[in-house]
């Protein structure tokens, strides 16, 4: 049999999601890990086809084009696997999968 991992293991999902302050989002994961995200970092890493070229994977979004005071206006779950953000610059097409969110964690252990 192959060494394929079970879909249940090693695949944490957000357990608790909350706004910490006006520029920080906090996620507690099912494996106990705690992430704090600068919202600007999340906007800069939007995975949608406007921001990342769908075929080449090259980033098309110029971080300098994002307003300094960028904030989410709201965020919500998509199915069981992703989070969608609506941003104050009107952008809202990015679906951030749980895996991507975990990869974007900026804590010392993850970096």
């Amino acid at each position, binding site marked *: *049999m*192959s060494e*394929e*991992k*079970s*879909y*249940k293991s090693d*695949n944490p*999902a*957000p*357990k*608790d*999601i*909350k*706004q910490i*302050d*006006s520029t920080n989002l906090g996620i507690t994961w*099912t494996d106990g890990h705690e992430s704090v995200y600068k919202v600007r970092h999340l906007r800069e890493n939007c995975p949608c086809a406007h921001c990342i070229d769908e075929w080449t994977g090259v980033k098309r979004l110029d971080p300098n084009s994002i307003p300094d005071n960028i*904030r*989410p*206006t*709201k*965020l*919500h*779950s*998509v*199915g*069981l*696997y*992703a989070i*969608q953000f609506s941003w104050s610059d009107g952008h809202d097409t990015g679906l951030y*999968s*749980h895996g991507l969110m975990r990869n974007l964690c900026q804590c010392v252990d993850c970096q």
Partner: protein
Amino acid sequence: MLDQDLQVSVMAQLKTVMDPDLHKDIVSLGFVKNMNVEGGNVKFQVELTTPACPVKEQLKTECETKVSSIEGVKSVEVEMTALVRAAEHSQPILTNVKNIIAVASGKGGVGKSTVSANLAMALQMSGAKVGLMDADIYGPSIPQMLGIPITPPKGGADNKFYPHEQYGIKVVSAAFLQKEGVPLMLRGPMLGGIIQQFLQNVEWGKLDYLVIDLPPGTGDVQLTLTQRAPISGAVVVTTPQEVSLIDAEKGVRMFESVKVPLLGIVENMSYFVCDGCDKKHHIFKSGGGNALAEKFKIPFLTDIPLVSAVVEGGDKGVPIIMADPSSPATKAYTKLAGQVAAQLSIIHADKEKPASSFEIAWEG
């Protein structure tokens, strides 16, 4: 001052209370409910669009202060409530349905609809309340298999409609939306629209299980359902041969990537038992479904024999499980229903549940 006049003044004052996000006053927004003025005592509710409203307390204080400043008002009682408005994705849908089971395959022709119909019947015969959604928009076959004549669904209030009922289960299908034999020719975005209607506009009533018969593959319908419906788990149907297993594996990976729990693999047309002997003839090889389950460490639910009575039952509109209780296929479907129900219970018992559907309005 008369209570009636007082009420007018109260409403006028509340018209100056603005919702900071929506930039409108709370009266125009229709947030003020159940206004009651009696002998100078004012009581009303403010119904917000989300219970998580970040300015809830601020609005409450503003309402209380402004209303108590009116001459003749003796007391003010403001209750803050919330009714989450319909919004794409975050809508609470299928709230009366306890379990949603998606039946999928990578490849067409593996008997997905037959498995869905018999699984739904087996669950119903166990005493559960069951619905069956035929989400195969281009090739709906559930009505045929359950012997339901093609008639338009009965409409209800608010654009809702009622499912057809047959053998004690509730059924919706795209077949009912067209005249018999006329193909539905639609591009992708329209498919999503039909699925959305099936999810939102059907008067399912209370269901223990809703079985969704998916179209083959990993396309629009699958994505719409996994993004919009709170699917409890997925069953992947395959036949034993490699060409089917390759696609079944893609189906498994699709559910993994959207984090829908996999209830397990069903191997259909697994073997043939002829009239003359009890020997199992593995026409399409054997063990493939089991191997796939082991590879992904998901349960192998059951294998279902190739029996001509299954096909006859499907064509006549009487599923095998009703037509022939002694058939080996009936036994396999009964086992399948038990396994599916058991896997769902295991998932429900999982303590490390991730956050369910949420919506957060950002403050500041």
